């Protein structure tokens, strides 16, 4: 016979249990990802196809014409390939928060987690963390293949500098990522890959931040617009640091990093506020969990 008394007041659940929820989410995400493993392989293959297109196109460039590229001490093909790589790492931040919310909603994961006071945040934290892990793995594969095929050269002693730049880049974009996630409920961005902030910023970055071509080719006013994007600074700095062009203390580098810090410090509170507002709105409307 079962115990017949219902629990009238549940035990207070603390931070340790929150952490165990995050761990659970990671474990579940890993289980789900094993279903995606073949698709991950294909996505990697497609990524290299794209990189190869740009790399081969670089062979058409007159070495003399691309003086801006030459200042990085790399060929145009390698210039694009590194740009695409850094953009890939940075753009994870823009999409991960929204993506986590999306999967919590569509795969109806939030339902169970709502039982716990910190459940939703634990779920989001776990999912985002897993996204970063996958992004890290992709990057490592990309670099290894890149060294062999696309002429990427790495100055090993300068590697910590590259990492610092990327971490700062991720930090500076976190606010925008949270803002993007909040559009899930604030702007009804419930479709896969439909995050207006990501879309807008991604569009700007592709054209203005020096991923595919140096911003110097652009008209002057567009170059000014491009300088507002943190990616412009992060990608430039990371490129310079990657093959040992510039250390942390170099003059240009310092300005870039300072911009990243300032941008992050300004947007992070905005993003957090928007995120909280989004969560609140979703709960008020009852759209945090999918009903039908």
């Amino acid at each position, binding site marked *: 016979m079962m115990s017949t008394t219902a629990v009238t007041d549940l035990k207070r659940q603390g931070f340790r249990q929150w952490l165990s929820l995050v761990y659970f989410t990671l474990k579940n995400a890993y289980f*789900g990802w094993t*279903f*995606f493993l*073949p*698709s991950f392989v294909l996505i990697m293959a497609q990524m290299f196809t794209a990189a190869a297109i740009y790399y081969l196109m670089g062979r058409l460039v007159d070495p003399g014409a691309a003086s801006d590229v030459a200042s990085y001490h790399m060929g145009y093909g390698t210039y694009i390939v590194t740009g695409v790589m850094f953009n890939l790492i940075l753009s994870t931040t823009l999409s991960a928060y929204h993506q986590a919310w999306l999967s919590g909603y569509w795969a109806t994961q939030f339902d169970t987690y709502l039982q716990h006071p910190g459940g939703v945040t634990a779920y989001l934290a776990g999912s985002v963390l897993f996204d970063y892990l996958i992004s890290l793995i992709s990057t490592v594969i990309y670099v290894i293949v890149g060294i062999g095929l696309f002429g990427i050269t790495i100055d090993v002693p300068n590697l910590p500098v590259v990492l610092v730049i990327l971490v700062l880049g991720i930090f500076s974009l976190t606010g925008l990522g949270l803002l993007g996630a909040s559009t899930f409920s604030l702007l009804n961005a419930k479709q896969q890959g439909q995050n207006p902030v990501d879309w807008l910023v991604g569009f700007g970055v592709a054209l203005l931040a020096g991923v595919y071509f140096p911003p110097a080719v652009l008209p002057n006013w567009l170059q000014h617009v491009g300088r507002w994007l943190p990616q412009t600074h992060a990608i430039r700095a990371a490129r310079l640091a990657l093959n040992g062009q510039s250390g942390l203390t170099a003059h240009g580098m310092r300005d870039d990093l300072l911009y990243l810090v300032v941008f992050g410090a300004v947007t992070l509170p905005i993003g957090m506020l928007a995120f909280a507002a989004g969560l609140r709105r979703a709960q008020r409307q009852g759209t945090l969990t999918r009903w039908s």
Partner: protein
Amino acid sequence: MAVNAATPDPERFAVEVYGVRKRFISREGLPLGWGFGDAHWIISSLIKYRQERQWKNAVDGVDLTVRRGELLGLLGPNGAGKTTFLRCLATLLRLDEGSAFVNGYDVVRQPDEVKLSMNLIGSGQWSAFDWGLTVRQNLHFFGTLYGIAKAERNRRIDETLEWLGLTGRAKDKPPTLSAGERQKMLLAKAFMVRTPVFFLDEPTVGLDPDGAHQVREFITRELIGSGTSGILTTHRMDEAEDLCARVAIMDHGRVVAIGTPLELKKTVGERSILEIRARRVPRDALQTLRTLPGIRTAVVAPAGEEGLEESVRLHCEDLNGTAGRVADSLASAGIAVSSIETTQPTLEDVFIALTNKRIAQ
């Protein structure tokens, strides 16, 4: 299988089914309903299916006919193969064995004619409507697929919407409709094209009593009333009794009984149900009752309100002496019984008697 099975008789029968079988590979352990993996085929086709291939008979030798102007009720537990059977008839599944005719056309050899002759209204199929288009535009879309000319289409849409009381919602989009209105929209789509045969798969599921009543009324008046024929599956016994002249009960892919509700009740036996009324019959007492000799099964309808009595229906093999044994058993368990009497079987009793094997397993 009858010798003349291969020659259909469309004058008398709307649907004829002879010895139809359909088996599937069961794919346990694979998420069928999900969009996992861009290239899920690598795992699934190379490793998993090979390992876990097991055949399962979903439809296992079904013979039945639906007369012209008749609505046949098809009852059965979840997973008995009702929907699979209807999909076979709708040419959405290929038969493994046997032959089936809809409106006199062979399901295997004349699929185009069959598709023009019938309409499948599945539960939850309203999600097939375009959510960006209005109800009217959606109906126009399907009307065109059935080759109805524009003027005729307009006339029929107006007519059908009015019958179903949807005229006011013609310009609205499906997401704004209520569950009842969505179901009606499906009926409108089916009725607009006016095929002589209908397959209705749980048409009133999820509808409130009012909406269910309206849908039932529409089915009797406009579909059956106009001389169309068809098959209706449902989990509601009263619905099958009200709408259908004959009822077939399916279990494990087979038709275990077919006939008018009256005939079916006779097969169970006029006096084989023993109804006990008591304040409360605990679960262990019920378990004891089930093991008594001469008793097939016992089902309980738990009562809610204080003072209301629970009713336990016992399906008996024969009544001689059973009542006494039951009374003894209850008395020894200390249960105060207010009455024990034999009652007429209901359709639900028939259903439980015929499909009970699964629970016993």
